[in-house]
């Protein structure tokens, strides 16, 4: 069985573990072997916690042998965690030199929940520094590569978490999504990724990029796995004041896939200039398939979409400029070796500790908040945010969910956009409005464009995450696009 263990879904692994057919140690070993085999090519991990994972697996085995059947819905399932989620005793770098050696003394709420559900945390994944980026190239350590084409980017910022799942190094992983950082890399690597409604999953322990937009969410190779992980991480947490205190309803993904009665809107603004023709073709095919499943699909309009990107690139950097002020070389993290006095220590520590994209965004954010510019930039952007939200409210009077491309383009070549920050920002045009409005969004594979994966984005109403999962599941069952896997294996690189 061990030869294919890494190909199994989380749902399957959990069942086999609970039934005593696969031990947690066998599972953990299989995935650690897989990581050893393929990670040198894709470089999804920053930290591989082999020892603690094996120790944990042994404990889970002992518990199961002792007759404990309440171990949890992720018992025996290896999982990778994005490196901006705090793990007690395990280095948490945020992909940044400034936190290169930082070992947190506490677990994020989602990590506590993973542990309580019996999951085995197998490592921490690479990412764009402080989640700022859409390609994974802004990691201070190394870029992660797309398993579909190692010369291409996997998307970002949750590059490592997406690739770890796409390359079958783990069945599940956690990412974070501020403007598309889960959905876009999921689309570009051919897996399922979900950004829950803002406030569904606790942010406690997620290193903040833009507090009013950040949300932790799951990656998996199929919708069942993503739903299973979502059910574990979502729920009330009193340590996060922006947590809504809600427990998601039980998500039923059984029976015949049908979308009968579902009213789906297709916002025309998401198909404007810049969309790749192949991507557009895949989405159009998806629309046909959704209709075949019984859905009513109609065009609709979100007129303020074109302004969302600009609003986002003011709001997110502004919040980030304050959130990242704590990295100052005083309490933890990097401090410049050479300084004279406090001011120089601050300035050099931060200049040496942060990469160019992080500095750029701190600069924009600081400027947007500075005296005399607040109203013209920050406040204006938050007013636009209101308009973007109203657009969604209006179409949701008519529709149950919206469908759009997740990314207007498939994965591009490494280095292709690194000199043009603005072009890079435009890659997030389909995902950003969802964060501004705090809505749930999910990307599900919908075929290939010239051999590269394309993602279909579903957008739902606040706290209607379960419905999105049900729709995505029906689509997945009908199309099987999610079964396409990159040809990456022990055969080595290309």
């Amino acid at each position, binding site marked *: 069985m061990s030869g294919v263990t890494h190909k199994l879904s989380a749902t399957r692994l959990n069942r086999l573990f609970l039934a005593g057919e696969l031990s947690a140690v066998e599972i953990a070993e299989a995935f650690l072997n897989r990581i050893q085999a393929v990670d040198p090519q894709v470089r999804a991990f920053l930290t591989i916690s082999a020892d603690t994972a094996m120790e944990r697996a042994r404990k889970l085995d002992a518990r199961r042998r002792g007759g404990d059947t309440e171990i949890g819905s992720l018992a025996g399932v290896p999982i990778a965690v994005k490196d901006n989620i705090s793990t007690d005793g395990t280095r948490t770098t945020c992909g940044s030199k400034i936190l290169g050696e930082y070992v947190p*003394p506490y677990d994020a709420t989602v990590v506590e929940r993973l542990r309580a559900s019996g999951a085995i945390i197998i490592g921490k994944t690479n990412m764009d520094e402080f989640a700022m980026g859409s390609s994974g190239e802004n990691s201070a350590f190394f870029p992660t590569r797309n398993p579909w084409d190692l010369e291409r980017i996997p998307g970002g910022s949750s590059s490592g978490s997406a690739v770890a799942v796409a390359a079958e190094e783990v069945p599940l992983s956690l990412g974070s999504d501020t403007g598309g950082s889960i959905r876009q890399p999921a689309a570009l690597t051919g897996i399922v990724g979900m950004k829950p409604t803002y406030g569904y999953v606790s942010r406690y322990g997620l290193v903040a990029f833009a507090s009013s937009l950040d949300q932790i969410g799951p990656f998996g190779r199929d919708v069942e796995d993503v739903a299973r992980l979502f059910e574990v991480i979502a729920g009330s947490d009193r340590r996060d004041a922006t947590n809504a205190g809600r427990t998601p309803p039980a998500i039923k993904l059984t029976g015949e896939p049908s979308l009968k009665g579902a009213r789906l809107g297709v916002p025309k603004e998401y198909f404007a200039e810049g969309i790749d023709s192949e991507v557009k073709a895949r989405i159009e095919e998806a629309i046909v398939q959704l209709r075949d499943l019984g859905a009513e699909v109609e065009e609709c309009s979100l007129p303020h979409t074109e302004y969302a990107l600009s609003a986002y690139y003011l709001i997110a950097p502004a919040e980030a400029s304050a959130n990242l002020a704590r990295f100052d070389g005083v309490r933890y993290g990097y401090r410049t070796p050479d300084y004279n006095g*406090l001011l120089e220590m601050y300035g050099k520590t931060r200049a040496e500790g942060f990469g160019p994209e992080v500095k750029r965004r701190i600069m*924009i954010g600081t400027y947007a908040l500075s005296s005399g510019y607040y109203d013209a930039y920050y406040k204006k952007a938050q007013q636009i945010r209101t308009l973007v939200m109203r657009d969604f409210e209006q179409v949701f009077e008519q529709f149950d969910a919206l469908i759009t491309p997740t990314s207007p383009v498939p994965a591009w070549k490494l280095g292709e956009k690194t000199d043009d920050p603005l072009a890079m920002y435009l890659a997030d045009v389909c995902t950003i409005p969802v964060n501004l409005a705090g809505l749930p969004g999910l990307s599900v594979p919908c075929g290939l464009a010239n051999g590269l994966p394309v993602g279909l984005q579903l957008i739902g109403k606040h706290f209607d995450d379960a419905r999105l999962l049900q729709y995505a599941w029906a689509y997945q069952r009908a199309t099987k696009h999610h079964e396409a896997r990159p040809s990456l294996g022990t055969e080595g690189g290309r």
Partner: protein
Amino acid sequence: MALTRNQVEHVAKLARLSLTDQEKVAFTEQLSRILEHVESLNRLETADVPPTYHAVALQNVLREDKPHTSLDRAKVLSQAPEAEEGCFKVPKITEG
């Protein structure tokens, strides 16, 4: 709107970033371009639109006034670049 080098230097000072000359040149150009793009927002009249600061409206999320166990000091200070006498140590404080 184009940013001047002076403005870039002022903002860098507020953000406590010691930028190199090269970075100052690059940021002056890049930030100007980004701000130009953002100018498009001004096409929308928003005088009567209230700003949204929280995507999901909550209110009065409060905590009970009950103490928890604090962190172990040795563990906390083990992460400090410099520590002394149970405290974090910082260099000579020079006013900004």
